[in-house]
C-alpha cells in the first residue's frame, strides 16, 4: 500500500545521500556566512538607530506589548481548536438538535461553550454542521455568538478589563449582546426562508490528515491555527500600534466623545483590524480614550464581521447568510451598544 506523505518531495528522490546533503549544507553555510557577517551588524546598527527614534520606539513597544499579552490566549485557543478538530465528532452534536425554534435558538449559543472555537475556527465547523443537517438559523446563531461565548474569549475579556470598574461589565455586556444579536440574525434568517438549505454544491473532501496518531494531528491543527491566528493578530497589532503613534490623541478623544460616531468609528476599526476574538479585548482596552459603548461595539462586531470573515463566509457558507449578516449585524451592534452604554452610565 502506498504511503501518503505531505510536504515537499523527499530529497532522497533527488539522489542525494546523507553525506551529500551535509556537504551541501556546509557549503551553503560557508557561502552565506560572509554576507551575513557583513550584513547582520549593518542591519542591526540601522535597525537600532531606527527604533531609537521616539515614534518608532513607541510603535515597536506597543506592537510587542500587544503580541506578548495576547499570544498565550491565541496558543491556548489553537490547542483547544486542535483538540476539537480531532476528538469531537460534529455529527454527534447534530443528532442532538432540538425540534422547536425557541429551543434551537436557546441551545445554539451553548455550542459556543461546548465547541469553544474562535471566529476563524467556527466557520469550518458551522459549514460541516450545516452539511450534516443543522438548521441554518441555529448554525448562524452559533457562528456569530460562539466566538464571543468561547470561555477563552470571555476569560481574556475579563483579564483585559480587570482593572475597570465594575470588572464584570464589559464581559457580561459583550456576552449578552453577542447572544441577542446572534439570535436576532437567526430569527431574520428563519423568517426569510423556512426551507432547509440545499446541500452545498462543493463538498469538502475528508481531511487527508485523518488517522490514528491523535497527538500528531492535534499538534498539526494547533500549529496551523496558531500560525493563522498569530498572523492576523500580528497584522492587527501593527495597525493598532501605528494608530497609537500616528493618530493624534486629540482626534481620538474627539471621536471618543461623540456617542454614535465613536461606536461607528470603533466598528470600522474592528472590521479593518481583523483581530482574533481571543486577543481583541486587550486591543480594545488599550484605547483608553474611547467610551464604554464604543469599545463594546468593537468587541461585539469584531468576532462577527471583519474583512477576513467576509472572505471566509463567502467561501464556506450560503451567500444569503453573508447578506443578512452584513445588513443586520452592524446597525444592531451600533444601536444596542449605545443603549447598553447609556444604561450602565445611568446605573453608575
Amino acid at each position, binding site marked *: *500500500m502506498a*504511503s501518503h506523505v505531505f510536504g515537499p518531495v523527499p530529497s532522497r528522490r533527488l539522489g542525494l545521500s546523507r553525506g551529500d546533503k551535509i556537504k551541501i549544507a556546509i557549503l551553503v553555510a560557508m557561502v552565506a556566512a560572509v554576507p551575513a557577517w557583513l550584513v547582520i551588524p549593518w542591519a*542591526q546598527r540601522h535597525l537600532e538607530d531606527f527604533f531609537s527614534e521616539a515614534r518608532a520606539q513607541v510603535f*515597536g513597544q506597543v506592537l*510587542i506589548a500587544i503580541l506578548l499579552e495576547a499570544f*498565550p490566549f491565541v*496558543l491556548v485557543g489553537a490547542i483547544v481548536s486542535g483538540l476539537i478538530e480531532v476528538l469531537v465528532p460534529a455529527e454527534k452534536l447534530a443528532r442532538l438538535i432540538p425540534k422547536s425554534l425557541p429551543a434551537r435558538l436557546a441551545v445554539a449559543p451553548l455550542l459556543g461553550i461546548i465547541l469553544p472555537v474562535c471566529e476563524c475556527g467556527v466557520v469550518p465547523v458551522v459549514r460541516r454542521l450545516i452539511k450534516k443537517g443543522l438548521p441554518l438559523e441555529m448554525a448562524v446563531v452559533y457562528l456569530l455568538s460562539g466566538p464571543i461565548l468561547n470561555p477563552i474569549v470571555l476569560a481574556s475579556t475579563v483579564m483585559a478589563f480587570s482593572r475597570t470598574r465594575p470588572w464584570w461589565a464589559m464581559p457580561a455586556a459583550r456576552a449578552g449582546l453577542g447572544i441577542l444579536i446572534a439570535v436576532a440574525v437567526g430569527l431574520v434568517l428563519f423568517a426569510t426562508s423556512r426551507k432547509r438549505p440545499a446541500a452545498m454544491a462543493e463538498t469538502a473532501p475528508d481531511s487527508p490528515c485523518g488517522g490514528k*496518531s491523535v497527538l500528531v494531528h492535534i499538534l498539526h491543527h494547533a500549529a496551523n491555527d*496558531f500560525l493563522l491566528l498569530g498572523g492576523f493578530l500580528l497584522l492587527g497589532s501593527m495597525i493598532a500600534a501605528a494608530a497609537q503613534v500616528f493618530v493624534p490623541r486629540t482626534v481620538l478623544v474627539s471621536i471618543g466623545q461623540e456617542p454614535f460616531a465613536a461606536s461607528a468609528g470603533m466598528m470600522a476599526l474592528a472590521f479593518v483590524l481583523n483581530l482574533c476574538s481571543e486577543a481583541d479585548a486587550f486591543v480594545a482596552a488599550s484605547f483608553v480614550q474611547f467610551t464604554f459603548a464604543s469599545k463594546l461595539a468593537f468587541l461585539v462586531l469584531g468576532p462577527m464581521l471583519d474583512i477576513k470573515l467576509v472572505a471566509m463566509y463567502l467561501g464556506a457558507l450560503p451567500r444569503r447568510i453573508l447578506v443578512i449578516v452584513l445588513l443586520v449585524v452592524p446597525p444592531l451592534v451600533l444601536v444596542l451598544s449605545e443603549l447598553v452604554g447609556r444604561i450602565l452610565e445611568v446605573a453608575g
Partner: protein
Amino acid sequence: MSNPNQPPRLSWWELWPMLGWGAFVAYLYAKGRMTLFLRPLYGHLAVGAAAVLLLCFVCGWFVRQRSLKREAEHSHDAHVCGAGPSAWFAVRSLMFLVPIVVGLALPERGLNALAALQRGAGDPAMLAELAAQQQLAETHEEQGYGWTTVLGVAQRLRLPEPQKVGALGFVVRQEKMPPDHFLLVRFQITCCAADASPIAVPVHWPQAHTLESNQWVKVFGQTDPEAKVLVADKVEPTREPSNPYM
C-alpha cells in the same frame, strides 16, 4: 489513496514560528526585559506559553524526523500529497520574524516622553481623575522626605497643606514650558504598554532647562497646593528602574 494511519508531517513553516517566538519570549524573560512591555503577572503567563510553544516545537520536530525516516524507507511507493505549503502559508510563517526583529532592535527602556505627551501627560483633568480613582499612595522616609510614587505626589498636590515628598520618574519637557518647569512622569499600566497611562506632576526647579526629556530623576521637594506644583529642593539623575511602570 491516502493511508489513514499515516500522520501528517509538520513542515518547517509550521515549526519555526514555535521555536522562534518561544525562544524570543524566553530571551526577553531571561534578560529581564519583559517588564518593559507587560505587568509582571502577564510576563509569567507569556513565558509559560513560550514554554508550551517550545515543547510543541520539540514534539513537532520529533514527529517530523520520524515521518522523514518513514518516507525515506518507503520512498519507492510514496504518494506525495500537494506541493508543500502555499506561498500565503509561507508568508504568514515569515511574518513572525517581524516582531522578533523589532523586539531585538528596540532600546532597553520603557515608553518615552513622546508617548507620555500623546497620551495626555500633564492634562490636569486626566491627572485629577487618575489621582482620585485610587487610594492615597503610602510614603516612607528618605532623606527627610516622604518617598512615594509620582501618583502619590499627584494625590498630595490635592491636599490643602504643603507636603515634603520625593518620587522617581522621567523628565518630560515641552516647548511651551517655562525654562524652570518640567513634568515628572511615570506610566501606570493595566495589562501592557499599549494601555499605559502617564501620571505626570509639574515640577518647579530653577535648573529645569538643564534636564533632557526621558532622563530618569529622583525629585525631592515640597508640594504647593495653590499652584498645584511640586517645588523641587533637589533633583538627582538616576538610572531607569528595571520595571519602569507602576
